[in-house]
């Protein structure tokens, strides 16, 4: 009986196990839904005024000992146009004929000095009247030809130029025959008469072991020419001449286009220095035919100087030195506040104006430098400065329906005395306006710091908020192909709302974090 019961229990248990139905449909998951909300950082920055200034001005951004940031622009016009006024022309072929005395010459054991001739040569330099030329290059070319030819007659010609002094103090003296050339570098022309030298040639009958007969009417014809002459220095009178260098520009990147469209700016304590440095030992007058600040929109402002143009430039007293003539810009604030994009200037240099004589000098390396030094301190006030940049946006790969909601998180701690409203403008591929992401009240994302009476930081401006984006806005983001980030900047105002001069120091930072919080609607059916 017990056995039967036990077996019955086992059978019942087995029946229960095997009678259980297994329906695999309960384990076939047909779909899934999820609504995850992700918080993601978009961008961050710990930016100083140096980062915000246009990158083209990076080399010009300087910091004063107290941390005040300023833009320093330096440029020098290197003009060699006055030096280039002086040119030493080639001296064409000068023929000197020496008579060879006729007769029969016995064999002789020594050279015999024969006939000679002398000629004054004008170098053709004008209007300069040079008494001294240190030759850097050039050569004297000669060609001595016996006429009629006589192969048995041995001869040479001595060429002497007393005004050409070599490095060892001796004058030019060379014995040559046939054709050839002699370099003139390291010779110095020193002439009592400007621009002229004496060319002396002498026939030398060379020693011979055989007698020779010279017929009547035999001449030694020697041609002399000088070419390729340039100078290390010149002294004398350079004449009344004018040099016209090409115009020069200095680009100012800092202001870009941001200061157009109604922006006003006022910089405190700007610096604008203009110095003319001359190496020329000659009375020089510089005339600025153009000296102005220019904007990209074509407007310009004349830069006024003291002394006014034309300006007499101080000359150095000795060769190899320089002399500086300071020029003061009298409307410097006006010029800097004009927020120019470029400085443009054109000068001309006038030497020996109205003079007919004088003791001038210059070296081959002499030049005139017009040096500009501009300092624009980031100290002052500005309003309506517009910064804008365009970014491509293409969310075509994302299914818009998977976005349920989104919000832009903004966290800004701003030590810069600069308020900013930022707007994200959505546009299609042809920049046609679609919508703006933020309302007017939302767009004041950056609050400027407050400053004390010296314009120094008092307390930073803080914004930490979240801007919900409604579905219609999200939909437009997906339609957009361009997103234009446009910000309008104003320097901080005082407690009564009046603009004050503020300082941008290198240690002031704007700590900015942008984040995005997105809730997705994800679902899938299998």
């Amino acid at each position, binding site marked *: 009986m017990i056995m039967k019961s*036990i077996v019955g*229990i*086992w059978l019942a248990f087995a029946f229960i196990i095997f009678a*259980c139905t297994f329906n695999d449909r309960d384990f076939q998951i047909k779909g899934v839904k999820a609504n*995850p909300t992700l918080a993601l950082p978009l961008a961050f920055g*710990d930016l100083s005024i140096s980062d915000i200034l246009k990158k083209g001005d990076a080399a010009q951004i300087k910091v004063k000992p107290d941390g005040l940031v300023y833009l320093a622009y330096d440029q020098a016009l290197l003009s060699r146009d006055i030096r280039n006024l002086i040119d030493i022309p080639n001296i064409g072929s000068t023929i000197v004929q020496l008579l060879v005395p006729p007769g029969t010459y016995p064999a002789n054991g020594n050279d015999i000095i024969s006939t000679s001739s002398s000629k004054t040569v004008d170098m053709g330099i004008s209007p300069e009247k040079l008494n001294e030329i240190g030759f850097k290059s050039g050569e004297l070319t000669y060609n001595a030809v016996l006429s009629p030819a006589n192969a048995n007659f041995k001869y040479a010609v001595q060429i002497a130029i007393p005004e050409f002094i070599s490095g060892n103090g001796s004058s030019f003296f060379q014995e040559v025959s046939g054709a050839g050339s002699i370099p003139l570098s390291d010779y110095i022309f020193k002439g009592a008469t400007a621009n002229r030298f004496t060319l002396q040639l002498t026939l030398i009958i060379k020693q011979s072991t055989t007698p020779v007969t010279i017929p009547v009417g035999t001449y030694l014809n020697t041609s002399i020419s000088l070419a390729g002459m340039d100078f290390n220095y010149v002294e004398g009178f350079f004449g009344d001449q004018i040099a016209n260098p090409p115009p020069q520009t200095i680009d100012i990147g800092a202001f870009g286009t941001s200061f157009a469209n109604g922006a006003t700016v006022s910089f405190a304590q700007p610096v604008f220095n203009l110095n003319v440095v001359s190496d020329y030992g000659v009375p020089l007058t510089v005339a600025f035919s153009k000296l102005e600040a220019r904007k990209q929109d074509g407007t310009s402002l004349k830069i006024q100087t003291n002394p006014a143009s034309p300006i007499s430039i101080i000359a150095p007293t000795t060769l190899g030195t320089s002399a500086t003539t300071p020029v003061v810009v009298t409307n410097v604030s006006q010029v800097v506040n004009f927020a120019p994009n470029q400085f443009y200037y054109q000068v001309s240099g006038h030497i020996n104006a109205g003079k007919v004589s004088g003791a001038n000098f210059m070296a081959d390396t002499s030049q005139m430098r017009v040096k500009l030094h501009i300092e624009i301190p980031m100290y002052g006030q500005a309003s309506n400065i517009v910064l804008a940049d365009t970014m491509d946006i293409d969310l075509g790969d994302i299914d818009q329906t998977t976005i349920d909601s989104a919000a832009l998180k903004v*966290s800004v701690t701003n030590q810069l005395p600069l308020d900013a409203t930022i707007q994200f403008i959505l546009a299609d591929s042809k920049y046609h306006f679609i919508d703006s992401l933020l309302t007017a009240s939302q767009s004041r994302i950056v609050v400027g710091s407050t400053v004390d009476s010296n314009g120094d930081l008092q307390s930073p401006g803080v914004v930490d908020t979240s801007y919900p984006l409604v579905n219609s806005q999200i939909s437009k983001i997906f339609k957009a192909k361009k997103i234009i980030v446009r910000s309008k900047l104003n320097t901080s105002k005082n407690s009564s709302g009046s603009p004050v001069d503020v300082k941008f120091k290198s240690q002031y930072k704007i700590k900015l974090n942008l984040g995005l919080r997105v809730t997705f609607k994800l679902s899938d059916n299998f």
Partner: protein
Amino acid sequence: MKNRTLLFLVMACLAWSRLSAQSEGTLTLMNSLPQVVNNNPAFIPKYKISIGLPGSSIMGYYANNAFSYNDMIRHVNDSVKADLSKLSGALKPKNYITQVVQVDLFRLGLRINSKLYVTLNSTAKAYSREMVPKDLVQVFVNGNTTSIGKTETLSPKAESFSLIETAVGGAYQINNKLTLGTRIKFINGLTNVTTESSTLNLTTDKSTYALTASAGMDVRTSGIYNLTQSNYDLGSNIGKYFSNFGLAIDIGATYKIFDRLTVGASLIDLGSIHWKNNTYGYTLDPAKATYTFQGVDLGRVLNGDNSYLSSLGDSLQNKFKVKEGSIGSYNTPLPGKMYLTGMYEIKKNFTVGGVFYAEKFRDRLSASLTIGVNKHFGKVFSAAGSYSMVSNTYNNFGLGMSLNLSPIQLYIVGDNLLNASVVKDVNSFVSQTKFFNVRLGLNFVIGFDKKTQKEKKEKNAQSQGVDPYQPDEVDTVKRKKYDNYSPDKVKKKY
């Protein structure tokens, strides 16, 4: 007062350990099964001789300390949809999913005399435990906004091994009250995956949403990498899989506090395995693998650093690139277990008992509690019923049955079997089960417990008017056993 303190300690321990472990509470109650010695080597089963042959007994175990299938889905009309929010709500901070399979290759239990019982067994075991942190699931289900300003722990961990264990053990009855047992296990590890360390933390800054990720990893494997290689010839290398040697010991004791109440304690699998075959590691340097993404760096963009964004990706890849390669040998511990048992024989062949179980493996200490009854219906049929609190579930009604048709014993036992047997269909059971274990098979058994035989003899003697407690000339052990009892006492007791 002592009981209250004990109860408090047990409850505190359970609460702390979150009720999850690889326990077999109901089996512990069933002394008719030779396998009961698995849980305490001091246990002496009912049969003098028991033999198991390859594959004659198997055990399967599944535990999920957090969620069931029902917690993952919802029924919409006639179909099933995944419900991730529901799943997320059901998760624990650390979600452990454990699977175990054991197959007896050979088993011999032999009672040498009334004091000594020896066992010899060989068992193939496979163990796998995965830990999935709640934060990891939540990031996918809810995103990272639920933990803004906090650090999310995303790193999963895995422990897995397969082995063949050959053990020899014995239980020795020191006196009428105390029995001690031990078992030495010689282990051949086959495959292993172990997570020495694993971290993947993600922090979302409350103010800026900046994401900070830091990671570290030291995962070691043995005998796995080669199997993933297409040209690997397992057949010619099978011998290498037996080169991972391990050693473990089980110790246990039972103590009869008084005649009907016996308590026991055991420590199981105290040992480790030395892995040296095809050891391959995956590491990530925590000092290097850390990065904070704050978004696009406007400073660098404004300064015209055009290569910045592309270099950002390269930098991330380099920082979080997992380094892999062959490594040296290493040791792993076995999941160490502890059983505390108490059995009270309410009346003849009817015992109530409680089993407290704890397991320590890697950085996890888990526990369970089982209370139950065991009844021998003669020597032919034994049954047990139990209730277990395990794997964070409190509806586990276990069942054990053994049909003792000596020399064949059929049995099945499991801590959640009763639930399985009363539900209408398998679907319901599978869908709502977070914990399930079953051990079943057959043993060859000979010689039911002497005490039971003696009791039968007593019964017969009483019916024949013979004093059953007179010493038996051929059974000196029996004489000793009852030396301390007067017949009157025993008569009164029974």
